[in-house]
């Protein structure tokens, strides 16, 4: 059949569908909803997955994070019934041992944290006071917004210098430049004055810290970074927790050790060696956990692959339902237009001509439905993204798959009505009123 005939068929197909606008629109609805849902769901899933991957990447794919955790029933009673002390966790020696014995380790970063109240003038905030080394920003891929991070000199001299996270700086110094200003870190025995020398933009979630919401509903990542040596000199390693009627003391030398490897490939093989290095000095006491971002990332990717298949399955089911709806209507149309089919046959149409005509009409329905669905789904995803600030990512493959499935459904479910139209006996068809 020459090309112009196909164009003509499409043109006439459109006109046949326009004869019953409402019916055609309702027929397309199943297709529209199916495709719309596919595009939107995939975009939401993709967005969520991308966000999670970003968060894990922020921890560093070539990093391993070892955290101190409190072992169960490991309390030592101090004087008095309501005073307890737990001694556990990572030590400086662990960090040194890992750096020396585990192959592939580029550097390690010790971190010590306590909760402290930090004030400036009338404003105060419960913060994480973090003692760490000067290479902390490179390790965590955090960006220095203003000033300097802590340096070796301050570490060596145990100086009272500090760096604030951006949202905390904004809270404590509204409308002011915090650099060179002083904050007071309240302790049980003494209050200490720290000079602010830098502002750090921490990558979200990289610390897995509880974020606090302020009065306006914005979350604040309230971290105060000071030299590890200063931290130990001023506060020691005992973290005192005052609960109702009791005092518990957690004696932890290091809250966390971050280990950076030269490359991502070296991470997984080194994990048993890290455990060996840590367990060597421990007697069956489990007081640490190891977080491996690369493994989490891979698990997330595997999860995403499964989710994608599930979405595709749901999509296929909804398109199947849409397709059955279309087939149903096309069969009704064939019955309704039996006489037209008879006339066309009498005027020289072959069975192929008739089936192509009905197939083209089904395909038009599916493609228009698919197009509206794609546009609707993309628009919907954009609405979520830009208006509701819920990350969505419309992937090319979902659009291509949606169109492909539309055509597939059109061909599959259009074939039977087309065939049943073609096999009509012209004489019977002509007689049909």
């Amino acid at each position, binding site marked *: *059949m*020459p090309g*112009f*005939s196909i164009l*003509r068929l499409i043109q*006439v197909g459109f*006109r*046949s569908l*326009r*004869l019953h606008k409402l019916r055609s629109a309702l027929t397309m609805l199943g297709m529209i909803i199916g495709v719309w849902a596919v595009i939107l769901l995939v975009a939401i899933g993709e967005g969520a997955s991308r966000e999670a991957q970003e968060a894990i990447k922020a921890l560093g794919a070539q990093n391993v994070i070892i955290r101190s955790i409190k072992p169960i029933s490991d309390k030592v009673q101090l004087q008095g019934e309501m005073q307890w002390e737990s001694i556990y966790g990572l030590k400086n020696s662990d960090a040194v041992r890992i750096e020396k014995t585990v192959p592939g380790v580029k550097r390690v970063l010790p971190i010590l944290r306590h909760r402290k109240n930090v004030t400036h003038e009338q404003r105060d905030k419960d913060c994480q006071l973090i003692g760490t080394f000067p290479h902390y920003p490179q390790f965590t891929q955090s960006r220095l917004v203003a000033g300097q991070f802590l340096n070796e000199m301050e570490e060596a001299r145990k100086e009272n210098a500090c760096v604030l996270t951006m949202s905390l700086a904004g809270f404590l110094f509204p409308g002011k430049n915090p650099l060179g200003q002083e904050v007071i870190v309240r302790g049980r025995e003494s209050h200490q004055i720290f000079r602010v020398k830098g502002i750090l933009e921490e990558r979200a979630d990289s610390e897995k810290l509880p974020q606090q919401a302020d009065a306006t509903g914005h979350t604040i990542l309230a971290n105060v970074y000071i030299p590890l040596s200063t931290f130990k000199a001023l506060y020691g390693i005992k973290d005192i927790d005052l609960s109702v009627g009791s005092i518990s003391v957690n004696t932890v030398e290091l809250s966390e050790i971050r280990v950076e490897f030269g490359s991502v490939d070296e991470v997984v093989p080194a994990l048993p060696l890290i455990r060996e290095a840590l367990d060597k000095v421990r007697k069956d006491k489990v007081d640490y956990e190891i977080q491996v971002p690369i493994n989490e990332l891979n698990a997330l990717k595997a999860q995403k692959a499964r989710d994608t298949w599930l979405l595709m399955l749901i999509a296929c089911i909804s398109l199947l339902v849409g397709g059955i709806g279309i087939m149903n209507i096309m069969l009704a149309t064939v019955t309704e237009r039996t*006489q*037209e089919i*008879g*006339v*066309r*046959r*009498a*005027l*020289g*149409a*072959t*069975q*192929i*001509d008739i089936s192509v005509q009905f197939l083209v009409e089904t395909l038009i329905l599916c493609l228009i439905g698919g197009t509206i669905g794609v546009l609707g789904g993309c628009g919907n995803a954009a609405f979520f993204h830009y208006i509701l600030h819920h990350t969505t990512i419309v992937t090319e493959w979902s659009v291509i798959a949606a169109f492909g499935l539309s055509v597939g459904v059109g061909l599959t479910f259009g074939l039977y009505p087309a065939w049943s139209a073609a096999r009509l006996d*012209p*004489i019977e068809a*002509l007689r049909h009123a």
Partner: protein
Amino acid sequence: MADRNIIEIRNLTKIYDLGAIQVPALKGLNFEIEEGSYTAIMGPSGSGKSTLLNILGCLDRPTAGAYILGNDDVAHMSDKELSGVRGARIGFIFQSYNLIQQLNVIENIHVPLFYQGKDISDYYDHCEKLAQKVGLGDRLDHRPMELSGGQQQRVAVARSLVNEPLMLLADEPTGNLDSTTEQEILDILDELHAEGRTLLVVTHDDAVAERASRVIHLKDGQVDKDIRKQDSDRKSENQFQEA
């Protein structure tokens, strides 16, 4: 007028196989239709009239016998071949006009050409001339719904002419029309006959048969009477003009 036969029917037989019983509808017909003739086929219901029409229109195949249309025996062609024969050699005119509702006048006239693979833009003038010929030159973009029965039948006549068929095959062409309109359509058919076209009209209406130069009466699946009239016997003014 040439004596060339457009149609030769030889021992044409049609038996409907209903499983338990076999019903013979046509029992060995024999006749010829000459080029440029105007023939009416008449007969009571059950005489095999419709069966013959379907076979002559290449919509059905005979059980036995030969049907020579033009130069080919089309009696045992495949469905696809018959579709081609219908589209190229036969111009159908139906009782209920059978225009396609979603197409306008000019597009309806073009339909048979479409199935011959001919683009409407190349044949627009041709279709328009035919519309003018049947008096619908000012209604080219009207849909069938917007036309009267007589006008619709005129469109159908124009459509039957569009691919210069060997013969026009009309099935009760005035069956749905009032007497005034009937005359108009019959006059058009007379004109076409005068132009030298071959007409075959299946009817039970004497007024229609009266216009024909030959009437074949069927009865029980056989030719009962085959009457050829002289031109002078006929009333049509057109025929007088031709003479």
